[in-house]
Each structure stands twice: as structure tokens, then as C-alpha cells.
């Protein structure tokens, strides 16, 4: 007699199709869970999700809005991916994002040049500001063996409070300003729109460019190869001539520069002011984006777009269905949780086993 039973076993390789299916399942489950959350809170979840969809994709203008929201997330996501692919646990993206925006803003306070010079300068300053802070964490690690997690978190606080100081002490605040925010960024320093009448600004194009560059850098270049080798096995990498100290500093500088660009893209493309609240949360959201995307640059672009759409749609939902847009943060976290759960589950499969008795 033969008895069949089912056994769970580990898959050798999940594969691209598996990863895609996993993403769909995770997002579907996250929407169901969020729907339940909305229902429990007493909202009509169908109406709310419909508003969310319209807000994110309803018109071309809304799609542009979603892309604009996605741009800084793509940058912080890429910043996380670069560091994590090398297995360097930097979580300083938030501080580096602030630093990039702050250094760029600093130049605009005294420079008075035409846009054609100011805009590139502002972009470079953003990369420089973030890169310096990232590089500092790298130096602290290689020189004094300070844990990267510790130094990046500390620097997050230091930079956020530095902005707070510059505002409350009124160094960066207009004399007649009531809110804790800087004066408006002058027109010639703002990131221009991509074409007349577009909502897409230069920062979105930069984000797309960064995604492609990072994809090539990580997968196709000798530097990316060394970086992944270092991440996979730093001991073997060192035996094969990949100098760990150099690698740590370079990776953290590059990661910081990307986060810094994210700060410029948001402040100089959307907000046109600096304030603590405007830039708050892009670091942790970038972390979520990168982890969901499996630290792959092209996937980061896609996930950032989904998150950008959630943010854009969330605003619309708030207006139309009277649902607080705070629910969007909850949804992002819910998506991450389902992603983590499904990524473990998808490593296994159920198999029928016939047994003779």
C-alpha cells in the first residue's frame, strides 16, 4: 500500500519568477491586511483604496506626482543597497540626506550665480555633504574601529540637531518667519522641471540615471565585483588583494553621496525650504525599499515607485476618504513585514512523497 504525505523542503534556487511571485503575494497580502486595519478603524476600505489608486495613478499628473515622491526614496534605497551589498551596516542615510541638503543650502545662502552654474553646484554639494558624512563613518571604522551602526546612528542625531540649531538660533531662519524652517530657496538654485508644464523635475531624471549607473557599477564593473567579493567573504577578498580599509571608506562615501543627493532632490526639487519635518523619514523608508528590493538597483527603482505612489495616493486618500495619511506609513511597514515573511516562505516548497507501507 502506498501512503502519500506532504513534506516541506528547501528550494535550491528561488529564481526570478519566484521572486516576482513573492513580491505580488506580499503586496496582495499587505493590501488585505491594511484593508482590515481600515475596516477596524471604521473606514470604508474599498473607497479608501479607490481613492489611493486614483491619487497615485488617476491622471498623468498624478503619475508624475508619484514619481516625484519616489525620487528621494530611490536615492536612499540605493544608498542602503551599496552599503549592504558590501555587508557594511550603515543606517546613516537619514543624516547623510540632511547633510547633503544642508551643504547645498549653505552654498545658496551666499552664492548668487545663474541657474546654469548654481544647479550643478547644488547637486555636487549634495553628494559632497552626504559623502563626507559617510566617509567619516568609514574613517571612524578603519581608524578607530568604531562600529559602523553606532557611528552612523550617532551622526544621524548630530546632523538633525545641527539643523535644529541653525533654525532655532535663527542663523538660517528669515527674521519674520514663524515656522521652524529656512527661507525659500532662490529660484536659480531650484531643480528645473524637465519640460514646460511638467511636474517632473531634474531630480527624477537624476534618480533614474543613478539607478542605471548603480546597476552597472554593482554588476558589471571591477569595482562592483570587488565590493561584492568583500561583502561575500572579506577574508578571501583580502587574500586576493582587495584592501578592506579602502573598501569600507569608499563604499560608505559612495553610499553617503547617494543619500545626500536624495536630500537635494527633495529640498531643491519639491520643498524649496529646509526643515526637520520635511526631510524626516526618508532614511528609514529607503531602508525598507532596499530590503524589499533585495538590494538590487533596478528593483529599488520599482519598489521606490510603488512607495512613491503610496505616498502620493495617500494624500489624495486623506482628502477624499478622510483617512489619515499616517496609514500610509503603516502600510509601508505592513508591506515590509509581508515581504520578509514571504521571502522566507518562498525558499521552501511543498512536495508530495509516496511511501510504501
Amino acid at each position, binding site marked *: 500500500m502506498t501512503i502519500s504525505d506532504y513534506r516541506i523542503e528547501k528550494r535550491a534556487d528561488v529564481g526570478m519568477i519566484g521572486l516576482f511571485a513573492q513580491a505580488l503575494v506580499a503586496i496582495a497580502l499587505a493590501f488585505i491586511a491594511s484593508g482590515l486595519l481600515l475596516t477596524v478603524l471604521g473606514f470604508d476600505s474599498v473607497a479608501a483604496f479607490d481613492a489611493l489608486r486614483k491619487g497615485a495613478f488617476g491622471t498623468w499628473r498624478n503619475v508624475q506626482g508619484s514619481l516625484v515622491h519616489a525620487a528621494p526614496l530611490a536615492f536612499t534605497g540605493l544608498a542602503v543597497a551599496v552599503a549592504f551589498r558590501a555587508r557594511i551596516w550603515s543606517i546613516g542615510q537619514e543624516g547623510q540626506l540632511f547633510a547633503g541638503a544642508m551643504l547645498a543650502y549653505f552654498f545658496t545662502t551666499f552664492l548668487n550665480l545663474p541657474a546654469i552654474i548654481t544647479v550643478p553646484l547644488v547637486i555636487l554639494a549634495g553628494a559632497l555633504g552626504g559623502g563626507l558624512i559617510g566617509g567619516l563613518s568609514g574613517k571612524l571604522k578603519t581608524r578607530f574601529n568604531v562600529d559602523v551602526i553606532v557611528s552612523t546612528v550617532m551622526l544621524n542625531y548630530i546632523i538633525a540637531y545641527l539643523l535644529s540649531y541653525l533654525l532655532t538660533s535663527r542663523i538660517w531662519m528669515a527674521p519674520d518667519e514663524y515656522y521652524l524652517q529656512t527661507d525659500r530657496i532662490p529660484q536659480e538654485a531650484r531643480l528645473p522641471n524637465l519640460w514646460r508644464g511638467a511636474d517632473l523635475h531634474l531630480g527624477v531624471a537624476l534618480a533614474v540615471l543613478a539607478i542605471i549607473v548603480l546597476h552597472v557599477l554593482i554588476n558589471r564593473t571591477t569595482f562592483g565585483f570587488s565590493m561584492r567579493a568583500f561583502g*561575500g567573504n572579506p*577574508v578571501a577578498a583580502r587574500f586576493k588583494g*582587495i*584592501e578592506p580599509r579602502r573598501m569600507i571608506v569608499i563604499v560608505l562615501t559612495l553610499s553617503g553621496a547617494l543619500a545626500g543627493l536624495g536630500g537635494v532632490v527633495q529640498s531643491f526639487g519639491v520643498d524649496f525650504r529646509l526643515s526637520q519635518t520635511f526631510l524626516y523619514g526618508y532614511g528609514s523608508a529607503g531602508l525598507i525599499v532596499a530590503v524589499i528590493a533585495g538590494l538590487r538597483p533596478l528593483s529599488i527603482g520599482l519598489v521606490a515607485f510603488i512607495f512613491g505612489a503610496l505616498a502620493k495616493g495617500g494624500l489624495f486618500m486623506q482628502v477624499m476618504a478622510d483617512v489619515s495619511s499616517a496609514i500610509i506609513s503603516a502600510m509601508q511597514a505592513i508591506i515590509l513585514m509581508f515581504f520578509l515573511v514571504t521571502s522566507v516562505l518562498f525558499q521552501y516548497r511543498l512536495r508530495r512523497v509516496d511511501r510504501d507501507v
Partner: protein
Amino acid sequence: MQSEQHPPHLEVRKLTKMFGALSANSDVSFKVVRGEILCLLGENGAGKSTLSSCLCGFYQPDSGQIFCDGVPVLFNSPRDAIARGIGMVHQHFVLVQSMTVIENIVLGTHDHGWALGLDETAEKIRNLCIHYSISLDLYAKVWQLSVGEQQWVEIVKVLFFGAELLILDEPTAVLTPRESEKLFAILRKMTTDHLSIILISHKLGEVLQSDQIVVLRKGKIVGNVRAVDVTESDLTSMMVGRPIMLRTNRKDITPGAPMLQVSNLTVLSDKGQSAVNDMSFTVHEHEILGIAGVSGNGQTELFEALVGVRDSEAGRIQLSGVDLTHQGPMDVIANGIGYIPDDRFRSGLVGSFSVEENVILGLQKREEFADGPILNRRHIRDFAEDAIDRFGIVARSVQTRTDTLSGGNAQKIILAREFWSATKCILANQPTRGLDVGIIEYVHQILLEKRCEGFAIVLASEELEDILALSDRIAVIFKGQIMGVFRAGETNIDQLGLLMAGQMVENVA
């Protein structure tokens, strides 16, 4: 019958384990009687490790049954197996490097609640060690221990968990002859305590010290014999399917000009003590210098200094006149030195990399594999496919992840890479550790070929047979110093053995 009154300690009936379409074990049946040492013998990929992983709950067999003391059992995890008294000592140790020995042992237990209760445990472990005369510093960090010592930690851990049937995967691969003897003495003591042992090995000498031998080939049992009934050559032909000759035909070549010159080299260990002490030697073209010594006598530090990952305190390293003292690995590689490390998955390969990535690891910037900063993926693929062909690497494709390969195939990736990039000198530290006869024969052959081509080769091995078979000259290393250098043929295993233990001998050449 007696066996019906006392069911065997472990019985395997018709066990089959498939990986996709590949059958790693098919229809395997055997019994282990309590208090016996059973040896699983077979080449790489014969299915020994898969079989033992099924027995310890790491894998679940696709069909077949396992009985423990006559009771059918089903292990869903190693935890189930240990609850049944079956414990495994893996070939690649699963210890937390930054923790102490005792922390590592206690880590796997479940009865410590919130507090670790290290003191009482220490007492128990110490008693175990005394009972089996194992000397182990319980408060040393694991990374400070030699590979041989780490294995004792694994064995003590399994005993501490209450295992009555121990499965040891290639335990002597990391031990010196002396340590191996000690291991067997301890295993014998365990069997008199009614523990049973399943030993995985391919070293015929020690296989014959067990009671029962099960020979596997291509996943099937091709022989099940009592050790007293067979000879070494019976076993080899069963295992390989053909008679094999480990006697190498070493051509007589007169060594050429000096190639690698090490003078008064002093190197510190991680603990800051001098591991290599004022050492000098020269290796010539067409010459293999064998370094014999018990592991932990400075070999690791010496090789690390030669490849440039560990800076030297004093002395000089020269390669055909070029000063390589204080040079990093990049320069050492660029000057034509190849390195075959003893711990391939730690210092030779990136486990998460594919075969094609590992086969060019460190060479990625060479013009053969990159156009400026961009990797030339076609050239890399062609090179990797060629390497797979030439070295007979068994992998589904060049894209296969390296950590899914067997030790022998992983070693061949390193050989392919290092023999391609090296132009003058090969440093081989335990190149055959953990490999089986067929591949050892291959590694020996290829080292001798390189010797003919004019390479200077430094070969460290704990297998004195290897050293004697291959070397032109033999240096014995003890506590970071060279005790003596001999011409091959002017010495023997006994003399080398004494020197390895630190005893001075007259007539040093």
C-alpha cells in the same frame, strides 16, 4: 538470534535521497551495533555526507526508514536527532568564532532558561574532558584555536548534548598523525562506554581501525565488510572501481636558480607572540620544498606573511631578486606568486559567488577579464568554461553558486585560478586537506607538472606521505623555527615525526 534480543543501535533501510534528478543516495541499508565503529568510505560525491546528513536530521530522506534501537524514527531537524542521541560533527565547523569554547557548547542547549549557568556547565564539561583525556581551554575564544582544537570543541559539544551515536565527518582531515592516533584511542574508549561511532573517511589506514566498513560509490553501497577481512587495496578498488596508484612518478630535475628567498623572517601571531621566529630558507626553480609540521607551529602565519596579508616584524622576502617584504597581496599576486590556502572556503573563495566569479577572484582587473573598469563578461565566461573542462570541475554551469560544490570541486576552482595567475612560485598550504584519493592524486600530479615547468613550490602538509612523495627537500617546522632541512630520500617518517614533536636530531643536512 542475538540481534533480535538487542536490536541494532541504528538501522537504515532502503534510504533514498534525491536532489532534483540526481540521486545522492539510493537504496542504502546497513546496521550499526552498539559499541561499534562503522566507517563510511567513498570518494567525493559518493554520498557519504548526504547519508550522514540524513541520519542526523539535517536532510530528510525521500524514502526509506531509519530505526533507532529498533524504533522507527523520523527526524525533521538535527534537534530531533540529538533528542534520540544522534550527534554530528561536521567537516565545516559550525562554531561562533567570537565566542569562547564554553559559550559555544552551551549555545545549543535548551535547558539553560534565561541565564547561561556557565559555572555548573563548565564543571560538567571539564569532567567529560577528563574522562576522555581531551585537553581544552574552555575560556579561549574559538578564533584563537587551531582547526584541530576546534574539532575537539565540536566533539565535546556533541557529547555534552548526550549523544550516544556520534557521526564524525572526516575528523582526521584536520589532525596530525599523532592527534589522529589520540582521536582513535578516545573513540575506542567511547565504544567501551557503549557509545557507537559512524566515521566518514577515505584514509585507508584509519578506515581499517574501525569494526565495520560500508563502501559507497555513486550513492549506492558497493561493499559492506568487517575491517578484519579486508586489505587496503581491496578497499580502494571497491571505492574507486579501479586500482589506484598514489606512488607518483617524480622525474629527476636539477633545481635551477634561487627563486623564493626568505631570510631571518619573524612574524607575529594574532595574539602578538612571535609565530615565525627568525626563519630562513630558499626555494629554487624546479623545486618543491616540503614543510612538515604539526598545525599551529607557524605555518599559517608564514604563509600569510608570504602572500602579504600579514606584515612581517623583521627579515626579508624576495622573489627572484624582487623585494616583496611588506608588500600587500596585490603586489605579491602581480609578481607571480600563487596561493592555495588550507581553509578554502574561508580564505580562498567567496561562497556566494558563482564558479565564474571565483575563478577570476583577484584577477578581475587584468586586461583579460576587464576593459578598463568594465568586466568583460564573455572572456570571463570563456575562461571559466575552459577551467571547468581542464580541471574537471563538476558544476551544473559556470553560474552555479560555489558554496553548493563539494570540497574537491571548490579546490579545483582555486587550482584553476592560482595556476593561471602564478608565473613563478606556488605556495600550497595543506592543498589536499579533506579531499579524497582521486583528487589527491590529481593535485599531486599537477604540482609535479608545475615543478617540471620551472615553478618554485612551497608545500606544507600534515600528511607526511604527501611530503615524502613530492618534495625535493623537506623542512621540519616546530614552534616557528625550522628544525632541519633534509634531501628527500635521506630521511624517513620516523625521523620527521620526532622533529615535528620538537626533538633535535643529529646529522642535519
